[in-house]
Each structure stands twice: as structure tokens, then as C-alpha cells.
């Protein structure tokens, strides 16, 4: 088997790629203008017509889409085709207006799975491999994406979903899994469990891991590689564009190749929106060139990174993006879940607490921890520990319902959470995720 899944695309010359992108962009803009009233209005406001877009050099003329647009247009406002043509929905985990619901036609599912297949092959996957997918299945894109990619490559696919770690290891040993797909924190956890079970990397057959959906460091990569005896590959994606597989790492491990035949990338200045030259650090923006169900044009990811066309030793010519180096908004990724501080604030107010809170995120044993300190109000106070503990539990449950992850809630005395002069410090992230 080739070292590329689609060599004609993955090793295409830059000029050919740009021509292909231009051709697709012109068609996509016409289609979106005709079918998506929301985006047509944005283009009209900006005074841009589909005729103004003749190549990718005209991309900067198009209006941006942001998460706020997704909220305004929820759920069907950005749909690019009739619902009857759609076959799948995937969604982010938020339960409020922050939730992203994306629609897929069969062609969208196929192209998404192809993108994931490229990632699987880049990690050394062939039809002789056994690929254990331990990302969550369901609305979350992780499981379905890598499951599809693994199928396309012809790997024997184990749709494990996440959790039940001892069973994961049991299957891994009994069925000789060679590739593991999951979040990096779960991979690290599997590594620890392996050790606790008295096993070593020699007791399993894994050779590679495809890990994504949350930020991780080089240090963590080395730890996981050592604990599982594998080479660990990064994968990037977001539900708005499709899911994992928007970009993927090759054996060089120096950034992720973007599947730019489907997802046209730009780096902009997050403050001015101005397009920055290659090599600049800025906000990553994606334009879906082929998507039918949810065809987002110039979608601002809020991820800060750098693009590079430097020649890659793997032979792929696809442009590379660095690992995201931060966010241009306040979103946190905790255990693979997108969390906005404002979501937590909403719950606090609903439950009758003051909006003075502090979110502390840390990583213990390679698993993210979420601690929320909340100022107690005189009305909420009780003279028994039982009542106060019940209040903490109620609040923790309400936050879990909102975010899908379990926090630890701490009640603190009023006016103990620092009020700064300007912007309040609401979040302390101790994970040091960005080098």
C-alpha cells in the first residue's frame, strides 16, 4: 500500500492545488450565495457578489463567519442544501446556544472519512492494521470520524468508544490492536492503567496513535509514546468544518498537513481581520470548498497558529499548520469538551449565586481537572455542613448538565475572589498547554 491515501492530492504541486482550490471556491461561493440566505445577506451587506470571486486571491473579499453567526442561525440558518439531502448530524457538547449542530450529506460524510483516512495512512495504517477507536461515539465527531477513516483504509476497526479502560486493554491484547485513536489525555490514562495492570508496552502490539480533540504538549507526546511504545500523531479538526481530519500529522511530527483541497486555510489578525502573510502567527480561518450540508465560508476558528509551506520530508505538499498556540477568545478545552466561562456563569446565576467565580483548570495524572470557586451569598448560607454540601452538589450537577463534564465546586466567602482593575480574572489554566 502507498504511504499516501490519495497521493494525487497529497503530493499535488502547489500551483495545481491553488488552481483546484480556485475552481472549487468559485463554485462553492455561487452555491452558498444561492442556497444560504444568511450568508447571502452578509455578502450583500459587504457589497460582494459571487462574480467578484474569480480565484482564491479574491477570498479576502468574503465576509467572515463566527461562532456568534452559528448561534444566530441555529439550527438551520446555515444549511447549504435541502434537509432531505442530509444524512447525518454531529454536534459539539454544549447544551446552550454555544452548541454547534452540523449537517452532512453523504458526500460530506465521504469526504470527511477520506480526510481521516489520509491521517490513518500517514500514521502508517494499512488494511493489515487493527485500529482501536477509543474516541467517544455519538454526536461528538471524534468516534465517527476516525471510525470512518479506519474503514476507508481497510483497517479492522474496533469501535470501542471511550471509557472502560481495562476492557480497552483486554481487547488491545486479545485482538492485537496496532493503532489507537483517542484524546491524548485518554491515551495517557490507558498508558497508566497498563502499568497498573503490571503490563509493559511489550505486552501490546500498538505501533501508532492518532490523538486529537484537545491541546497537548510535546512533553505529553513523549510520555505517551514511551508509556505505550508507539509513535503518537496529532490530528486537528472542528465540528464546524467536519470534525477530526481537517489536518493531520505525518511521521515528521512538525505540524499538521491541512487537507486543503477541502478546507482552504488563512491566517488573519484577530483584531483587524486582515489576512497575514504565510509564516505569521494569527487566527486560523477555514473555508469549506466542498461541503454541501454545512458549507461555512471564512469561518473563524479562534485558534491561534502559523501556516507553513516548507517542504516536508514525508513528500506531502499539503500546507502545514502548527499546533494551536492559544485562542483568540476565552474558550477552554477541558477533557476534549469546549467550555466557555460564560456557560458556567449562566448556571451560577440560574442557581442563585453571584457572578463572582474562579475557574481553575489543571491536569492531574494526564487528566484535566476543573475546579470552580463560587462566592457564597448570605441567602444561600446554612448552619449545617449537610445543607452546604448539598448545595455544592446541586451546583456541580447543574454545571455538569450544561458542560457534560464534572466539576468540583468550592464555596468561598464573599469578596474573596480577586477583583482586578480591568478585566476580571475568571480563569486560571495551570496546564501549560502551549510551549
Amino acid at each position, binding site marked *: 500500500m502507498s504511504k499516501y491515501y490519495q497521493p494525487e492530492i497529497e503530493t499535488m504541486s502547489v500551483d495545481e492545488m491553488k488552481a483546484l482550490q480556485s475552481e472549487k471556491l468559485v463554485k462553492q461561493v455561487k452555491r452558498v450565495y444561492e442556497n444560504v440566505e444568511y450568508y447571502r445577506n452578509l455578502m450583500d451587506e459587504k457589497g460582494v457578489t459571487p462574480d467578484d470571486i474569480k480565484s482564491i486571491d479574491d477570498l479576502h473579499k468574503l465576509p467572515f463567519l463566527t461562532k456568534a453567526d452559528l448561534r444566530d442561525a441555529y439550527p438551520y440558518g446555515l444549511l447549504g442544501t435541502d434537509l432531505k439531502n442530509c444524512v447525518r448530524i454531529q454536534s459539539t457538547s454544549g447544551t446552550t446556544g454555544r452548541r454547534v449542530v452540523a449537517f452532512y450529506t453523504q458526500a460530506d460524510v465521504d469526504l470527511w472519512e477520506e480526510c481521516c483516512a489520509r491521517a490513518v495512512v500517514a500514521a502508517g495504517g494499512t488494511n493489515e492494521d487493527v485500529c482501536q477507536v477509543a474516541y467517544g461515539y455519538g454526536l461528538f465527531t471524534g468516534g465517527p470520524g476516525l471510525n470512518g477513516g479506519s474503514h476507508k483504509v481497510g483497517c479492522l476497526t474496533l469501535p470501542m468508544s471511550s471509557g472502560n479502560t481495562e476492557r480497552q486493554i483486554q481487547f488491545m491484547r486479545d485482538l492485537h490492536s496496532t493503532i489507537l485513536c483517542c484524546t491524548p489525555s485518554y491515551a495517557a490514562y490507558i498508558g497508566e492503567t497498563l502499568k497498573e495492570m503490571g503490563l509493559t508496552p511489550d505486552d501490546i502490539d500498538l505501533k501508532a496513535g492518532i490523538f486529537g480533540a484537545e491541546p497537548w504538549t510535546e512533553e505529553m507526546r513523549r510520555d505517551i509514546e514511551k508509556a505505550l511504545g508507539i509513535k503518537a500523531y496529532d490530528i486537528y479538526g472542528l465540528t464546524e468544518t467536519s470534525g477530526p481530519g481537517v489536518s493531520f500529522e505525518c511521521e515528521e511530527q512538525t505540524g499538521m498537513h491541512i487537507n486543503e483541497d477541502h478546507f482552504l486555510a488563512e491566517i488573519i489578525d484577530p483584531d483587524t481581520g486582515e489576512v497575514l502573510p504565510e509564516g505569521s502567527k494569527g487566527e486560523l480561518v477555514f473555508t469549506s470548498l466542498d461541503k454541501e450540508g454545512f458549507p461555512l465560508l471564512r469561518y473563524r476558528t479562534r485558534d491561534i497558529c502559523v501556516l507553513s509551506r516548507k517542504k516536508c520530508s514525508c513528500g506531502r505538499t499539503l500546507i502545514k499548520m502548527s499546533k494551536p498556540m492559544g485562542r483568540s477568545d476565552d474558550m477552554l478545552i477541558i477533557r476534549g469538551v469546549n467550555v466557555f466561562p460564560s456557560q458556567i456563569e449562566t448556571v451560577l446565576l440560574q442557581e442563585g449565586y453571584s457572578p463572582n467565580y474562579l475557574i481553575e483548570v489543571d491536569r492531574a495524572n494526564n487528566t484535566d481537572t476543573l475546579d470552580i470557586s463560587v462566592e*457564597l*451569598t*448570605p441567602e444561600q*448560607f*446554612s*448552619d*449545617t*455542613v*449537610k445543607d*452546604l*454540601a448539598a448545595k455544592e452538589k446541586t451546583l456541580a450537577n447543574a454545571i455538569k448538565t450544561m458542560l457534560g463534564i464534572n466539576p468540583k465546586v*468550592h*464555596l*468561598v*466567602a*464573599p*469578596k*474573596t475572589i480577586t477583583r482586578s482593575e480591568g478585566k476580571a480574572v475568571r480563569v486560571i489554566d495551570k496546564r501549560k498547554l502551549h510551549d
Partner: protein
Amino acid sequence: MSVKQISVFVENKKGGLYEVTSVLNNAGIDIRALSIADTTDYGILRLIVSDHEKALEALKADGIIASVTDVLGIEVSDTPGGFSEAVKVLSDADITIEYAYAFITRHEGAACVIIRVEDNAKAANILGKAGISLIEAEKAFN
């Protein structure tokens, strides 16, 4: 019948308890009895003081979370089995004691146990029938 207790939320941090005691001291409040319930994050300080209204006002003025709770003060003889008898009476009547703390009063040979129950009137009635006397705040603490 009942005694007024001041309940105070105290965070587990350096100086947390001192902040409360210094406010009371500055307001000229005398602490007659106290107990602390503690968890990993915070404690609840329960106090019987010389003037609960003034104490509450002073604490609130300082931004400290405090409230007044009605509790019962049981007078027990300062001899073995004194408190046990009262607990048995309540237990037999299915009354749960949320918390309790004791102190020796200035009256020789008598101790006082503060108890917190769900229904003060019911508990007082049952204790009274069993011949156990409750302490009136003014008498016990002055």
C-alpha cells in the same frame, strides 16, 4: 424556649477565623460557647454570644456571611449519664440531632448542651415531658 446561635461561614484560609473573632471583639461581644464544623474547603463557626443582634450586625457590616439559628440549650447535671438521658429521649421520639456541643455554665454542677434539631418546639415539648429542663438564654449565659 430556644437560644439564639450565631452561625458564621469561615473559609479555610489563614486568618479566616481571626477575622470573625476580631470583628466580635471590636464590637464588644463576649463569646460564651463555640463549636466549629469543618470540611476541606470551609468551616461553620457556631457561637453563643452575649448579644446576638449586635454580633450579627457587626459581622454583616464586615461582609461576613452569618445568620441566627434557633437552637435548644439543655441543662444537664455535670455527672456521668447526664447528657445520655436527653439523647435517649430524643432518639426514642425519632428526633435527629444535626449537631451538638457542650459547655460548663457558671452555675456549679451544671452543664449546658446546645443541640440543633429540625423542630425546636416538638423537641422542647418532649424533653419537658421527660423532666429535662431547657435553658433560657438570659439565664444561662449571663
